[in-house]
């Protein structure tokens, strides 16, 4: 069973800012940690348009659409220090490829999600060192491609390219975009120039305790590849820091649990991003609004009627595990841009279980600037985009942090 939010978990830092959670009708927006895109309201191809932010994701309705290749150019300079158990050249490539396949299978074997092995095209090899190019429409993994985007201490990054216009076809060999935010190209780069970045396959890791587990780092990057941003849940695959050298992230995948390295938060996010309409197990949702007792506490920001930027989490009442967490504060209940009404929606929760809902302000070390990356993509306006129509425009409000939470004793 799914229970509604517990209202009494918040107390005020100032009496006038007594915050409360109330269940409301309507359709709040997804606020999971996904990369977002707002459709270009100026382009007639988006007519009728919605200015509601859309999560970036692949189109899994077309099997095999996400083709993949990886660069076998390991020997060319700059050389990534990469250890495999088997040093035979052919076996070495096979060992690396096995790790790549395993990392993909972690994400394609989550029940209740339409991202399946068949969604992916064949994994091929290319000898090209500079195989990663965001403008070629080919999804690539590059282990030693130098890129001036790297800086010291960055182990790896992923670039996803999405269009903000329906039917946009930037890559002639690929089909046009069928929805706003469709990922049209994704590339994963490993840093070959950082002196502290050495990698090892899982088979070689025990003998290389100072190296990072290649499979764990890649599995995290593939979360970005498929549209995820980062998660604030410490155990989640999408938690931003790599595991310590010599260690794996999460449980090891096995024949019966290929997705074992993922946390429930990752699985819930994947089910939201790639929902399976036939899934009746993860069909629960909790939604509501976070409202202040006194609207004046919102600071008089135009169009803001609820707390913005609070983290909301559904926790299994029995195990205490975070099943899903979301950044709340906005919805698309009415046509037009995002409405900053304090809404949240935690979806794809397993039914038949009880949850507690916690609301946490992004206070303490957090400022509006430090969450700007997560929220800045929610709005476009004439300042960000010349000629943007007023009826599709919004401005991201200041994050509200003037309330605190506590747990019931």
């Amino acid at each position: 069973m799914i229970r509604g939010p517990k209202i009494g978990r918040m107390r005020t830092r100032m009496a006038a800012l007594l915050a409360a959670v109330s269940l409301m009708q309507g359709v709040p927006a997804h606020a999971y940690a996904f990369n977002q895109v707002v459709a270009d309201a100026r382009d007639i191809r988006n007519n009728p348009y919605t200015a509601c932010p859309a999560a970036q994701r692949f189109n899994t309705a077309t099997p095999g659409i996400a083709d993949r290749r990886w660069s076998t150019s390991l020997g060319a300079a700059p050389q990534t220090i990469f250890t495999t158990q088997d040093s035979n050249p052919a076996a070495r490539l096979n060992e690396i490829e096995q790790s790549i396949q395993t990392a993909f299978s972690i994400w394609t074997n989550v029940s209740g999600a339409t991202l399946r092995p068949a969604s992916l095209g064949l994994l091929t090899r290319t000898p090209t060192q500079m195989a990663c190019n965001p403008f070629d429409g080919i999804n690539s993994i590059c282990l030693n491609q130098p890129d001036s985007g790297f800086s010291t201490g960055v182990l790896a990054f992923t670039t996803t390219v999405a269009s903000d216009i329906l039917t946009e076809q930037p890559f002639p060999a690929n089909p046009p975009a069928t929805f706003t935010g469709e990922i049209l190209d994704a590339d994963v780069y490993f840093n070959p120039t950082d002196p502290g970045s050495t990698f090892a396959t899982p088979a070689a890791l025990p003998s290389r305790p100072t190296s990072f587990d290649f499979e764990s780092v890649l599995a995290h990057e593939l979360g970005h590849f498929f549209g995820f941003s980062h998660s604030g849940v410490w155990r989640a695959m999408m938690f931003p820091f790599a595991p310590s050298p010599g260690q794996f992230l999460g449980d090891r995948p096995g024949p019966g649990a290929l997705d074992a390295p993922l946390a429930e938060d990752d699985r819930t996010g994947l089910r939201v991003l790639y929902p399976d309409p036939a899934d009746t197990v993860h069909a629960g949702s909790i939604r509501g609004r976070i409202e202040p007792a006194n609207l004046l506490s919102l600071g008089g920001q135009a169009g803001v009627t609820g707390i913005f930027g609070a983290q909301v989490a559904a926790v299994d009442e029995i195990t205490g595990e975070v099943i899903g967490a979301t950044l709340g504060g906005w919805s698309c209940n009415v046509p037009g841009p995002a409405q900053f009404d304090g809404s949240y929606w935690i979806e794809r929760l397993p039914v038949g279980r009880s949850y507690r809902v916690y609301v946490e302000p992004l206070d303490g070390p957090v400022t509006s600037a430090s969450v700007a990356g997560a929220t800045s993509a929610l709005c476009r306006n004439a300042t960000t985009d010349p000629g943007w129509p007023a009826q599709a425009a919004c401005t991201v409000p200041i994050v509200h942090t003037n309330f605190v939470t506590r747990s019931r004793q």
Partner: protein
Amino acid sequence: MRTKHASWWLAAVATAACLGAEATTLRRMSLEDLADSAHAVVRARCLGSESRAQGGQIWTWTRFEVSEAIKGSVPEHVAVRLIGGRAGKLTATVNGVPRFQDGEEVILFLEPSRGGEWTVTSWAQGTFRIHRERATGRELVTQDTAGLSLFDPATREFQPGGIRRVRMEEFRERLRAVLAQRGAVRR
């Protein structure tokens, strides 16, 4: 049991503070590591940003006015080039790259990029936001990765990671001490 659960996951959720501002996959670096790697450490004010495609990537350039060079020698105005942004109809997303708001003040650990431009050392780890405490007006410094605490599964406790809400004077003193040890401080 419930209280225990609540306390550790609340701390976990609080680490979501840096959503979008945290690293893609970063190697943890101490202040000493950052100071060693950075060619310059500056206090600067953001003047504005723009994105465009160049050399097979989409980049965002952010212009800063430097008010203080704590390490290294930099001009009064610097351009920081970071990967990702929007060019034409395409949006290139790279999680973990810091983005800046016009007018905000930061302390940045910088290393040279190509063409006389700069990049931020270790992205979010080398980015420190300056904000004023509402009650006192004092300046506080917070590292973009500070919300990402270190979790000890054995104790289910979080240890603060990074610099968070440290008074500017204290941070500057600490930074200068680190740089002085390395003979790199500007006086």
